[in-house]
């Protein structure tokens, strides 16, 4: 069984991490699976890869905060760069002859770079299963509808894709309703649940000892990559300095690898002498620290949510609200389910943060995801669905 995974990866680490979680599961479920990952990520190496998986990296593009894409480190005309990518994808598709192609997130690829390959497969290799992997939430539903109409996504879903894996749950957020999918498309949607994280972590005592804690309570503040996490970390540090003499907990703040040097320096200006807290840029073992926490404060990205829910931790989510509303919608839905507490970034202040922290610390046991219908076995379900789709080819019709 040959599987080709396309992950465009312009910004952040989310897509490549999700794709590799799935690939690891597939590799362990199907010893005969050969997987090839097509990616624009310069970070593909940072993550552990399963056996029998190789990757092809094409030139990297960046997403600008104003919207739109451009070359990341090779300043040639964007059209030439996209031409290289499109043709590299096509070559790979043509030679690899996959049984199943899994396209992450962008149905047509960035700027339609997958279209030629998808059409080629549909006409020349009709047995190859074409699957779209869809995150639980994309953006504001009306915006998504408009974008998909403009980008010709609807006909792709109806006529080209064989299946749509939803890495979420229709009960929590239903793309069929929100994005107005046709009945034909709706039949292709397979709800796979959230891609939960491996919870094998270092013992809590060990992590806490390493942090040299002065109290018995730990709050971990993480802002993902860190590109836009300054306001949360600043508010938190101010909160600590306001509470200065009444701190009954330790804090670990993780800025993320993408925070600018300027912003890091800004954070160091706070007078935090003698306060029980640790500030780090990055840790490859984030799960162990999250697991050691009594409370997590974070943004609302898909992977962060999956980590928090897999560990079943109390959390205060301050979602990103621009340029996309994805995190806000996700935080609202999960806060409605009682799984997390949401604080809108417009309402973020040291005083308000303390109020929320205080409420959360007094709460009892956190709600269990499975009790409110949140399935975290996404990777297992995706792998099973891949097996079923591919085996259909091999049975007589």
């Amino acid at each position, binding site marked *: 069984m*040959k599987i080709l995974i396309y992950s465009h990866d312009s910004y952040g680490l989310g897509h490549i991490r999700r794709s590799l979680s799935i690939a690891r599961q597939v590799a362990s479920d199907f010893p*005969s699976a*050969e997987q*090839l990952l097509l990616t624009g990520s*310069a*970070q*593909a*190496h*940072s993550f552990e890869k399963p*056996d*029998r*998986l*190789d*990757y*092809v*990296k*094409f*030139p*990297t593009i960046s997403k600008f905060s104003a919207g739109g894409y451009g*070359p*990341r*480190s*090779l*300043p*040639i005309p964007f059209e*030439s760069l996209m*031409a*290289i990518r499109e*043709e*590299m994808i096509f*070559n*790979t598709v*043509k*030679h*690899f*002859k996959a049984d199943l192609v899994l396209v992450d997130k962008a149905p047509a690829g960035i700027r339609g770079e997958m279209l030629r390959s998808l059409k080629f497969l549909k006409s020349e290799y009709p047995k190859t299963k074409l699957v779209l992997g869809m995150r639980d939430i994309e953006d504001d539903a009306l915006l998504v509808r408009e974008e998909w109409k403009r980008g010709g996504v609807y006909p792709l879903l109806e006529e080209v894709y064989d299946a749509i894996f939803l890495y979420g749950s229709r009960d929590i957020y239903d793309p069929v309703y929100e994005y107005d999918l046709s009945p034909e498309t709706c039949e292709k949607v397979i709800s796979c649940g959230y891609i939960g994280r491996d919870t094998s972590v270092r013992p809590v005592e060990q992590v806490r000892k390493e942090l040299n804690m002065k109290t018995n309570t730990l709050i971990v503040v993480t802002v993902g990559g860190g590109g836009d996490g300054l306001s949360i970390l600043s508010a938190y540090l101010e909160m600590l300095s306001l509470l200065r003499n009444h701190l009954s907990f330790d804090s670990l703040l993780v800025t993320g690898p993408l925070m600018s040097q300027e912003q890091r320096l800004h954070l160091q200006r706070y007078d935090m002498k003698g306060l029980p807290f640790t500030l780090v840029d990055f840790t490859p073992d984030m799960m162990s620290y999250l697991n050691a926490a009594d409370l997590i404060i974070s943004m609302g990205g898909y992977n962060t949510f999956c980590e928090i829910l897999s560990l079943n931790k109390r959390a205060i989510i301050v979602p990103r609200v621009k340029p996309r509303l994805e995190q806000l919608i996700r935080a609202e839905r999960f806060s409605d389910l009682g799984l997390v507490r949401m604080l809108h970034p417009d309402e973020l202040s040291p005083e308000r943060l303390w109020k929320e922290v205080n409420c959360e610390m007094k709460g009892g046991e956190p709600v269990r995801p499975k009790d409110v219908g949140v399935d975290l076995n996404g990777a297992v379900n995706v792998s099973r669905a891949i097996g079923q789709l591919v085996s259909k080819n091999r049975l007589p019709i």
Partner: protein
Amino acid sequence: MKRIMVYSHDTFGLGNIRRMLSICTNLLDSNPDLLILLVSGSPMIHSFRIPNRLDYIKLPCLRRDEAEGYSARSLDSDINDIDIMRLRSDLILTAAANFKPDLLMVNKKPSGVKNELQGTLDYLKMNLPDTKNILVLRNILDSPAARINVWEKNGYYDAILSFYDHVLDDGCRSLSLIQPDSGAISKITDCVLALLSSSERKLEEAVKERSLCPVPSLNRMSNFTKVTMHSVHQPA
């Protein structure tokens, strides 16, 4: 902006990719008007700092098995009918045809692993005849006799004669030297910049010190092959 494409086949080990990246970094630092697209099969390419104005393409990896044959490193091509060599070859050609380099710099193997570069060299000769092709060699490979055999068997001499404008020696005289010395790197940079500016005078200056950087013109090819073979075993 002048465009350079670099090919480094890279099966295992860090030596090749590290050497090529040192050369690339020096080129980019010496001239703000250069862009580099590096095409590599190295599974280790990520371990290095990637400079600005350079992006890379990673090909599916190969490993070198005992008989000097190459096969797919992670993917099992035999079972599943994946033609990794054709895929790699097409990916390289795609990069060259769309990037349209002013100069192609090839590491060690004139036609690439298992001739995977042949299509690209043919394409450039036909469609982009102004592209300069240069080959960068380490001066230590095997014993001279073995090397001449391998080169003849693989048609390397013919490939150099047909496709390459210049052959540069990266200055590594000893097996224990992983990095070329800074003198050799700056010679290579000088040669590349001279080639890109099509300045005969600069080129002559750049190659004056032949011991570091023999750049035979095509009509001195026969001379070059002997010179290089001999210098392999001359003490540095």
